[in-house]
């Protein structure tokens, strides 16, 4: 049987030759992402800002009447709703801000009344509408969810960088962390730009991206470490190119297989996982790119060389080296 080969044998692409322009492009993209986050803001779901969210399916039509629905609900006097398509064209999510009230109990009562009014209005005006779910999150809980979500992201990134530092060398830890910051930033930028809803599921998606991107980075770094021991005299740029090329078949194969499942989940899976799967699919592109163009070149600039993995010198040697300013 003739087997499939995605990358021909002995492929040798000079990836690292273009490292400077790609770095500049990436830095610009990162700045643009922050710009988008700051100007557009993230379209935070009720998980993070509190409020009421009603999900509904218009069973009998192919497309949800978003504009009419917006007018109808705004006409109820509870303020303007944020209505978004959600998965299929006939599925929508309707978000409302929590009404003002003197205390939390009253706010909850008013919010319930509001939800009942909206659901009543929809059921009266749109036959064949199915209410799929109602989420109601208080301001207190939402700010907690936001804080713990961000904390989880930060803690994961730092813990991972420390692990890589311990397993490899500090330069690799810095490189991996930088690649992660790059991936997370661009993903946030995507969400700011497209205004897809950013909720707890997306935080989980970003953590999955971190895991995947890191997986990629580690595979490249592992090969770099191996080659550094094997080819002591090879210039760093050439060695990085060799390592990236050697791991290229694996990189492409793994990205392809994971993307296959994600695409299936995006287009065949339930509406609630669309944003989640889209985020991870995007993250896989960015993560693969960052392992090659962000994580690898940084090793040159941080002056990794074949001495980095020479069997460890004794403590006194090390202190002498520190005294001579070599470390």
């Amino acid at each position, binding site marked *: 049987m003739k087997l499939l080969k995605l990358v021909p044998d002995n492929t040798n692409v000079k990836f690292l030759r273009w490292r400077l322009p790609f770095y500049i492009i990436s830095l610009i993209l990162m700045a643009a992402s922050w710009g988008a986050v700051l100007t557009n803001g993230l379209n935070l779901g009720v998980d993070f800002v509190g409020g009421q969210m009603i999900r509904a399916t218009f069973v009998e039509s192919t497309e949800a009447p978003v504009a009419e629905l917006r007018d109808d609900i705004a006409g109820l006097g509870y303020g303007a709703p944020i209505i978004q398509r959600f998965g299929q064209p006939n599925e929508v999510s309707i978000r409302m801000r929590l009404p003002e009230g003197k205390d939390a109990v009253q706010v909850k009562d008013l919010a319930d009344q509001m939800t009942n009014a909206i659901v009543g209005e929809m059921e009266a005006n749109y036959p064949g509408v199915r209410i799929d*779910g109602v989420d*109601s999150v208080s301001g207190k809980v939402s700010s907690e*969810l936001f804080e713990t*979500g961000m904390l989880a992201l930060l803690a994961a990134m730092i813990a991972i960088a420390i692990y890589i530092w311990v397993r490899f060398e500090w330069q690799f830890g810095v490189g991996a962390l930088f690649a992660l910051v790059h991936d997370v930033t661009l993903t946030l930028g995507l969400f700011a730009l497209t205004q897809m809803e950013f909720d707890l599921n997306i935080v*989980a998606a970003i953590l999955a991206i971190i895991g*995947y991107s890191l997986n990629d980075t580690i595979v490249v770094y592992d090969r770099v470490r191996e080659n550094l021991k094997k080819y002591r005299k090879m210039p760093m740029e050439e060695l990085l190119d060799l390592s990236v090329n050697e791991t290229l078949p694996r990189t492409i194969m793994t990205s392809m297989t994971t993307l296959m499942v*994600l695409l299936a989940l995006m287009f065949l*899976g*339930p509406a609630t996982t669309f944003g989640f799967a889209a985020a991870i699919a995007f993250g896989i592109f960015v993560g693969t790119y960052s392992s090659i163009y962000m994580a690898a070149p940084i090793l040159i600039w941080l002056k990794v060389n074949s001495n980095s993995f020479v069997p460890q010198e004794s403590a006194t040697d090390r202190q002498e080296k520190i005294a001579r300013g070599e470390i």
Partner: protein
Amino acid sequence: MLDFPRWKRIWLWGLTLAGVFLALPSLTMLAGERWPSQLPDPEINLGLDLAGGSHILLEADTAQVRSLRLEAMEEEVRRALRDADPSIAIGDISTANGRLSFMVEDESQVDAAREVLLPMTEGVGLTGQRDWTINVVDGQRFIFEPTEVGLNQAVENAMDTATDVVRRRIDELGTREPTIIRQGDDRIVVQVPGLDDPQALKALLGQTAKLEFKLVDQTALPTDIAQGIVPPGSQILPFAPDASQQGAIAVRRLGGIQGDQLTNAQQGYDQNGTPVVNITFNQEGGRKFAALTTANVGKPFAIILDGEVLSAPNINEPILGGSAQISGGFSVDSANALAISLRSGALPIDLQIVEERTVGPDLGADSIRKGVLALMIGGAAVLAFMFATYGRFGLYANAAIFLNVLIILGIMALLGTTLTLPGIAGFVLTIGTAVDANVLINERIREERRRGRRVVQAVEVGYREAQRAIIDANVTNVIAGVLLFLFGSGPIRGFAIVLIIGIVTSVFTAVTMTRMWVAGYLRKHRPSDLNI
């Protein structure tokens, strides 16, 4: 490396088959079939996003515990002093600023009072720490201050009781398999699968159901009450919105009885056919109620529910039978809800809904169907692709993936964890990383063959060299997974559980199992070349 003695093979297959067997009941459930009930059935729990149902997060008002404890202490101090020595008179009682302070009027009795009160401050626990500190200032003024330990213990007890009460109330609703868990210091999570209209549930949880009988203070003038002027020793309480009287009424703060010593509460009708709640006291409650009504014949007393007066009837004659009827403008539903609440006991603390999520059962079923379909189609594409790329070695990898998914399901069923929608996405990612392990190994074997290594050696080097990167990658993923689980909530945790279990099992299936199969192939066929 490629040496697998018989005992090792038996072990590996045993573990794998155990995992697969544990997964079978869950698989049949996901496919919408019934698992024969006579077989053991460790099934995974489906999260509410898949099964449909209501999720409600309740938060307790812990500040309330502080004030309730002060009130209870005040009553206790009075009782203890009265029982010990009725000549000790106290006055100028205040419960402001989170502490109880009062004067002993005769300075010579301060020591005697202290003797009586000191034992009341000891904690229930064995730590010897006190629940309260007592200080005597200015010679006559006692100050009771709750200690941090005592207060925390009280909150803890109140939360435990509240959780029990919530559970009893939901059981009364007769819904299927509710989950009620305490979360953190002051929260309770309630999850009721299959319940898509939580109104009745919310009404039930929102009611504290603290029933009290207090004497009406007849000395208070209606004009004073209207202006909010409180006679000493009394308090002003509003009538409930549905009560037959409107406005407010003054009742004696002390000397009433609590309606918590009940054996039963049922919705019923009075002689006019109006819905009422009939309550039956237990022996002690009945005795207290008899004493109260005997001593106050001809006077009105207030029936108070959660700080609102339901009614204030006259005591026409002593009520000795241990049962009573509560009226208060009820509908059949509200009388029924109150009866349930009273039967299940009062909440020791007010609970408030801070998060509520409801998923319709249609959406849930739809999500499972689509999620499983996506997983099957995506998975099939991956399997085909792996086979086309690595041939025989791809088949080994595919078998490993297949077993991996089953073993993850089995372990989840064994641990009783919950499968959520993000959990299904976790499966997707796990498949991705499990495939990656085999891709790493197979690519490495290809590479080593290209460099001219002989078959067995290439396979050995491939597994050895790839393993390092696989371990590093998986450890970092476990780190991310554990942090997700620790910090995350709800959907994030569901994802983290699958991720963590999946990482462990995928190393087992993708590395160990495939190596065993490859070793078997090499030993049996001794190929001189590999089609990889």
